[in-house]
């Protein structure tokens, strides 16, 4: 078994407004998988299904080799989970919450939990309801890590935290991963944050997986190409996926094309059409993410990838 998470053909419709449709996700063991998507795209719903908190109408979910919900307790014993919204019992103090949580995990590392508590400067006797957002975020990470999980499922773990706390939280996760080679499945819409440490990325939009690939491929495959003299319509079919096309900003230097699946030899395609490729630029994850979503949305509606001079994405 090489994959920590396998979701196949998942369909789930909780209401009329939203549905997960034919969702396929593959998270290799040991990967740090960034699960990206705008708000309301279905990230948290997918995670809830993954954790067995809801039942899909169709499809299968396998976590650490065990089917969900069949092997749920075994899976959960090996999974550290940080939900989108703090879910702990508000009347407990930090110390009581740690004690309560530890009772359910045979792999609980009490010494490390105490170390983290000290490092995070979490107060022992303060009730959870009175903790700051940052302190709550740290406590959630502490609880997820100290059970020494093989898989960490983090649902927007740094959302709303200040940069210092965010750094602390992510540093703790990375330290644990480097030490244990655990798998991390982290959802976020803070794309730039994930770019630094994820090695896999999946982009979800409107309940559908737009793309799933290694971070390396993501960066290698999606390029911004500056083209001069391109005709409005090409005779030959495009040898790549065109995610966006618009006039370049500034000094009339042609058009800016965002392309997926770019190879250097494709420059010949433009030459044959009387155009010239002036520049090929890498996109960072955030730019690529935005372009991907912009192209995926109309395609979902009309069944066609948008092409058009001057079209703004």
């Amino acid at each position, binding site marked *: 078994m090489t994959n920590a998470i396998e979701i196949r053909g998942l369909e789930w419709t909780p209401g009329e407004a939203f549905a997960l449709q034919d969702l396929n996700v593959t998270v290799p063991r040991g990967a740090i998988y960034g699960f990206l998507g705008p708000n309301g795209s279905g990230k948290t719903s997918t995670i809830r299904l993954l954790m067995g908190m809801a039942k899909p109408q169709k499809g299968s979910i396998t976590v650490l080799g065990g089917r969900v919900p069949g092997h749920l307790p075994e899976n959960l014993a090996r999974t550290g989970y940080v939900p989108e919204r703090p879910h702990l019992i*508000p*009347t407990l103090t930090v110390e*009581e919450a740690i004690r309560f949580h530890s009772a359910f995990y045979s792999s609980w590392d009490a010494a490390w939990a105490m170390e983290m508590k000290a490092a995070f400067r979490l107060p022992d006797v303060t009730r959870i309801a009175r903790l700051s957002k940052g302190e709550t975020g740290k406590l959630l990470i502490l609880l997820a890590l100290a059970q020494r999980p093989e898989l960490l499922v983090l649902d927007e773990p740094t959302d709303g935290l200040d940069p210092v706390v965010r750094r602390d939280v992510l540093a703790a996760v990375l330290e644990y991963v480097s030490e244990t080679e655990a798998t991390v499945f982290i959802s976020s819409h803070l794309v730039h944050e994930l770019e630094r440490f994820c090695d896999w990325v999946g982009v979800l939009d409107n309940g559908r997986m737009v793309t799933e690939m290694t971070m390396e491929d993501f960066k290698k495959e999606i390029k911004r190409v500056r083209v001069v003299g391109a005709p409005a319509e090409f005779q030959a079919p495009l040898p790549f996926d065109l995610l966006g096309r618009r006039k370049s900003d500034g000094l009339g230097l042609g058009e800016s094309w965002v392309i997926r699946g770019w190879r250097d030899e494709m420059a010949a395609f433009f030459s044959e059409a009387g155009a010239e490729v002036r520049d090929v630029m890498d996109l960072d994850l955030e730019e690529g993410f935005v372009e991907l979503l912009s192209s995926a949305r109309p395609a979902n509606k009309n069944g066609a990838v948008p092409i058009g001079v001057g079209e703004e994405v």
Partner: protein
Amino acid sequence: MFKQMLFVNWKASRFGLLPIMMAAFGLPFLAVKSVRLGRMLPRSDLQRGTEILFSSAEWAQLFPALAVAAGAVLALLVWNWDHRGNHVYPLSLPLPRWKYVLMKMGAGAVLLLVPVVALWLGSLLAVSLVEIPDGLRAYPTALTFRFLLSALLCFAIVFAMAAGTMRTAVLILVAWILLIFLGEVLPPFLGQLWGIPSLEGFRFLQWFLDATMSWPGPFEVLAGNWMLIDV
């Protein structure tokens, strides 16, 4: 694990339990209060016995009411934070759901012992303050046992209802109201239609209460004898 569950549920319910515990401790004193007030006056044994029985009967209705309240309040309180957190935390814990529910129910049942013990101590203390005439007896332990059974029964019913969603609870309630309505209206109507006098006089609610509140009905324990001092 159970110890932690017990602790967490104690923290969740302690402020709700406190007034019930105080009421459970105080109620037996109220049940013998008029006797104690009057005991300085010269009375015959018969007069005193009658007074004691009246006083005990006067307050007897409050014991089952308190048992119902204790069971219901505790059942609602132990589910409170689960509902507030949309059950996310319990569902993320690595144990089968039936086991979690069973542990929670067990913890609630143990916590019910708090008002039960308070009632027992209160009853023992209250009857020790009264001079009971010949022919009458105090039943502090029997009353406490009846209280325990009633509270557990109510706890179990409300616990099961509160375990579901609000939608489930509303559905059950609506189904009940519908059943009572149909049970009250339909048999007399059909009795008139078909000319069957026994059906015409049938009242569902009365029948249901009779069936459940008298032996061997499950709620008989609530309707039985709740006298602290009796013959």
